[in-house]
């Protein structure tokens, strides 16, 4: 478990992090979200001991974060960097040794990951000869080659094609199932929805909300439902009556529709189901949760308004 306690950091008197406190449970995939300049990278750099905090501290499994934790952390920075003149194998071997593996263990691990990602044929290729996507894969392996307990990823999916995005996401899920803790900062909200258990939203150096992904989506939900049915729209209008407001309609042909309705007052999912049942031939009723993109925008907008007030 990682406890971040009242962390503050400023550059040239401009705060990058203000009194940030977070708890990251072991075995979670934890998302750090926020607009550019919110302080995510600063927080990540402090977690990786690249920067030191002005105030506050970090505990890892109850112990103060120190140099002995280097071997337990893996890091994929946003701005990727490898030695261009080195070949893939030597580069990974060097980084694995820096993280505390013996040369033999490092060699075994590098071979394992190259095989796993099906890129063993690149091992003698110089980094400068790799395409951006290929270099990204190597950079990802560099972050995990020493089997870290905590993996910190800054924009891990940028630069990958959809196939490789899938590969990386699956790998992260596997690592999670192995009990590893993954902290990722991303602007890819779809992936946040897909893999993150918990997120913290940072804005202007502060944490404005921290919760489970589902809880956040539910909290931000506007009481909207998606209904699929067969029947006619007049019957629907009668059934909704004044309890629900029709927001959107899609027609699929053969009198099949998908509509979005919004509840009025205290009306619930059950009320909607009761109103529609027997009137229309229902295919599905689903509570509509906002996407993380919407959650993000709503929360930031709310914060801006509060700040102005």
């Amino acid at each position, binding site marked *: 478990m990682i406890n971040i306690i009242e962390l503050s950091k400023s550059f040239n008197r401009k705060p990058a992090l203000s009194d940030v406190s977070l708890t990251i449970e072991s075995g979670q995939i934890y998302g750090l979200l926020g607009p550019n300049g919110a302080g995510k990278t600063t927080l990540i750099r402090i977690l990786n001991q690249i920067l030191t905090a002005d105030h506050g501290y970090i505990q890892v499994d109850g112990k103060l974060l120190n140099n002995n934790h280097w071997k337990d952390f893996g890091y994929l920075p946003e701005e990727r*960097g490898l*030695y261009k003149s080195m070949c893939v194998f030597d580069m990974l071997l060097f*980084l694995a040794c*820096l993280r505390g593996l013996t040369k033999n263990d490092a060699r075994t691990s590098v071979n394992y990951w190259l095989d796993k990602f099906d890129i063993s044929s690149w091992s003698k290729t110089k980094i400068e000869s790799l395409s951006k996507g290929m270099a990204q894969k190597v950079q990802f392996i560099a972050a995990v080659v020493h089997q870290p307990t905590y993996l910190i990823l800054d924009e891990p999916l940028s630069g990958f094609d959809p196939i490789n995005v899938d590969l990386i996401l699956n790998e992260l899920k596997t690592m999670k199932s192995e009990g590893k803790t993954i902290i990722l900062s991303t602007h890819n909200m779809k992936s946040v929805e897909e893999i993150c258990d918990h997120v913290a939203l940072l804005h202007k150096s502060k944490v404005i909300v921290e919760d489970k992904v589902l809880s956040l989506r539910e909290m931000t939900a506007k009481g909207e439902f998606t209904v699929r049915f067969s029947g006619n729209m007049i019957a629907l209008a009668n059934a909704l009556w004044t309890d629900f407001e029709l927001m959107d309609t899609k027609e699929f042909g053969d009198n099949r529709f998908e509509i979005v309705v919004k509840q009025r007052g205290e009306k619930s999912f059950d009320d909607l189901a009761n109103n529609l049942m027997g009137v229309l031939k229902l295919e599905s009723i689903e509570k509509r949760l906002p996407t993380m993109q919407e959650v993000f925008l709503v929360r930031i907008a709310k914060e801006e308004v509060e700040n102005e007030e």
Partner: protein
Amino acid sequence: MKNSWLIASREFMDRWNSRSYQWMLIIGPLVILLFTYFLLKFGDQGKRSLRVLIADPTDLFDNKITSNPTQSIKYAFYTSYLDFEEFRDGNRFKEFDAFVEINEKILNNKTVKLFYRERPSMEVKIKLKFELERRVEECMIEQFTNLGIDRYRQIKQPLNIDFLNVYDPKNQAENEKGWVGLFFGAIILFFIGLFGMTILRSTSKDKSNRVVEVLLASVRSTDLMLGKIIGIGISAFFQLLIWSFVIIIGLLIFKEYVFTDIFDPSKYEGLQYASEVKNEILANSNFARYNTFIDLIYHRINYTVMLPVFLFFFAASYFFYAAFFMAIGATAGSESDGQQFIIPIFCLLLLSFYAGFQTIYSPDSFLAQFFAYFPFTAAMVALINVSIGVTSSGIVQLILGFLFLLLNAFFFLWISARLFENGILNSGHRLTWKTVVQWLKKT
């Protein structure tokens, strides 16, 4: 520290695998050897054999020159007056390359003029001068003394005046030896300049390709900095070793097989005289001066002291200067941005040469004493002092100078580490003194 060694070995391998480094390993010493070869080969330019006409109107020489003349000089005698224009333009003198005018008062004024058509080589000049001197000497003995030639040569002693320092009566502090120290100092400065720029470029490159962020997540910034300095330092030292090895082998080959006559005058063609005569040649001729340099390099420098001192000062000076190059590389917004800060460092490197001259010509001056302790110039001054030969007070100065340099190296490495830590993740900015001061203050 383990990580510093990992980084150092990577840096070393990076240099080792680089084409330019590999080429410099071979080309560098070969260029120096080639330069030395041409210096030795063509340093003594000029005609190597002469047909000399001796115009001796008073027949002083009696148509004789020496019983054992040099093969490369052929003499003929002309017992009438001859002026140089007649010699130059007269068809019957065309076969001669030079003519020697023996004037009537030669035994008093001891002056001889030699007119040549094509400049003779130094070697031929020396032989010619020697043989004419011998002959004039014989004539003088005949005319003015009752002594035999051998007896005269026993008595005849040149008047040597030695200018000795009252504090150094054994004349250990010879200027010419100081030049060897200056040469060794220049080697240090050359390698510091060359590899200092490598440090700067390597740091700027790590910054610009962002690999530094990956590294700093695994090592402390000071370990990274030290690793880079040590790795590049080892590659510099390795290059120096290879250069020294190749140059020493080359010079030995020159000595043993190529320029045997230059290195050993006893092998000089035609000069098959008794040993004391050879010594006299060495003492009196220009050739001796020519050979003094070789004598100096091969025999008169105490390398058992010189080499360890060289190595200690090389290492300490490298770390001292590396701290500056590293600080500039880490704090500059871009490689070109750092150039403006390089100029003062190179000026300080050049100051070492001034300190060197000051030490050679005025070793007791205040400036020379100051430069011995000034960390930017201490290596140069120390090497000159060692090459000249240090006295007991000089040893104290040498040790203090070294300790002071070492202390400064540590201090500036510490300063550099602070700048490195604060500046290494910043790029794209314009480096100003204000930023440097800010980063120095920041913890």
